[in-house]
């Protein structure tokens, strides 16, 4: 009798993981996930709607790719140009702008390129190039990386591998590398706030409107992938842009400071 009980129990345990209620899959970027916003927000959404959200945090490029392949139901990224292309190509529908924060330049305290208190991001890059100061780029096609490349395009100088290094990794790692190598880097404010205690770096440049970092949420097109949880995706999009969602976003603080600004207009 005991053996039967153990045997049944073992069999049940072995097979329960194969029986699951369908979750709502959200692909987002590592920096978004690392800020902790999703962790703070989603329980409210889950409690209200009963959906269970699975957050898969990868680079922007991969997040959009997951959406395009239909491996997730909804994507939340911060790369407006790529987002628009995504929708235009028919991979996603019902795009909404959710919130924004900004990018900042950080670097070593002794600031060899003299960026401190500059307000012009392009000028900052110019000085880095001129002084050939070490700069670590994300190098991973992320929203941050795309923004950085956009800024470089406005310069006549080109980056040079002598002082320009591509980390190919997430923001946290990239910051760590910059810290170890006494280098400059471009980072989103959220990740910076999380990491700055552990780093020998300082915030040097902020406030340039070109450093604006808007986030958009897009539902994966159900016409291309009929199996996706479209209802759930729409529910999440509606909720996160609703008053409740906006309120929670506004109230979210990192290291005691609000990080995101919810976008008031809907697209």
């Amino acid at each position: 009798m005991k053996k039967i009980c153990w045997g049944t129990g073992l069999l049940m345990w072995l097979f329960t993981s194969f029986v699951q209620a369908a979750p709502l899959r959200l692909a987002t970027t590592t920096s978004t996930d690392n800020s902790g916003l999703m962790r703070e927000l989603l329980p409210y959404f889950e409690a209200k709607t009963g959906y269970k959200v699975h957050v898969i945090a990868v680079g922007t490029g991969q997040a959009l790719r997951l959406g395009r392949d239909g491996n997730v139901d909804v994507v939340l990224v911060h790369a407006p140009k790529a987002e628009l292309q995504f929708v235009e190509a028919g991979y996603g529908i019902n795009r909404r702008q959710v919130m924004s924060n900004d990018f900042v330049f950080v670097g070593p305290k002794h600031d060899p390129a003299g960026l401190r208190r500059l307000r012009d991001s392009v000028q900052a890059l110019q000085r880095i190039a001129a002084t050939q100061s070490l700069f670590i780029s994300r190098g991973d096609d992320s929203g941050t990386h795309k923004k950085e490349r956009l800024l470089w395009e406005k310069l006549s100088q080109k980056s040079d591998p002598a002082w320009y290094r591509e980390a190919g990794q997430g923001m946290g790692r990239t910051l760590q590398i910059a810290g170890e190598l006494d280098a400059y880097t471009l980072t989103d404010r959220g990740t910076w706030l999380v990491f700055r205690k552990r780093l020998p770096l300082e915030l040097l440049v902020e406030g340039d409107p070109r450093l604006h970092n808007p986030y958009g949420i897009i539902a994966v097109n159900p016409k291309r992938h009929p199996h996706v949880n479209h209802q759930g995706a729409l529910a999440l999009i509606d909720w996160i842009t609703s008053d409740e969602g906006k309120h929670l976003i506004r109230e979210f603080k990192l290291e005691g400071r609000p990080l995101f600004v919810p976008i008031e207009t809907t697209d």
Partner: protein
Amino acid sequence: MDGLLGTTQQALQLLLTGNPELWTIVGVSFSVSLKAIIFTTPVALVLAFVLAYLDFPGNRLLLSVFNSLLSVPTVVVGLLLYLLLSRQGPFGDLKLLFTQTAMVVAQMILCFPILVALGHAAMQAADQRAWETARTLGAPPWYAMLTVLYEVRFALITAVLTGFGRIISEVGASMMVGGNIMGFTRNITTAIALETSKGEFVQGVALGLVLLLLAFLLNFLLGYFQGKGKLLA
């Protein structure tokens, strides 16, 4: 910044106070790896037996295939499985990507060659007379096989422990097909990868300690069973 000692202290605290997030992660590791090894072992051992006792064309070839699969990098298995399980892939309709099932499958693929190769070695080392004695005393072939497996059980346990060791500490495959989703597909190794990438070393060290302890335990058991196996040879 905390030094190594400080981080380790905090890590121990985290472990001993039963931090639920931490232990959920440990639970996922064990759940996935135990299932993988439980599902793989019977099939792999039977295959190892057949390869050792049955002569058929391609026998040697099959064995060398398994031997070469022993050292395939885990990320490669992960990538391959990802492409197969992706919606764009041939098995997309199974909806297995980013589930524990996918991780179990990946780990089954990883430990299967080990179990077959080591199991085969154990059977080869087994006494030929064992099979013959069992058969002549009236055992049907399947029972005789079980008898032989029992005779070399310590070597087989060693094979299983080795296979388990490989899969509980792998990160490449779990990361790719699991998606590192908290509470669901985040296991010890993917969590360590994540936490260190965030600079959160305390949780990383805590999980690392669990893994280290497990490694010690496995090694100890390995030595114990290997010794026993030798004694009865």
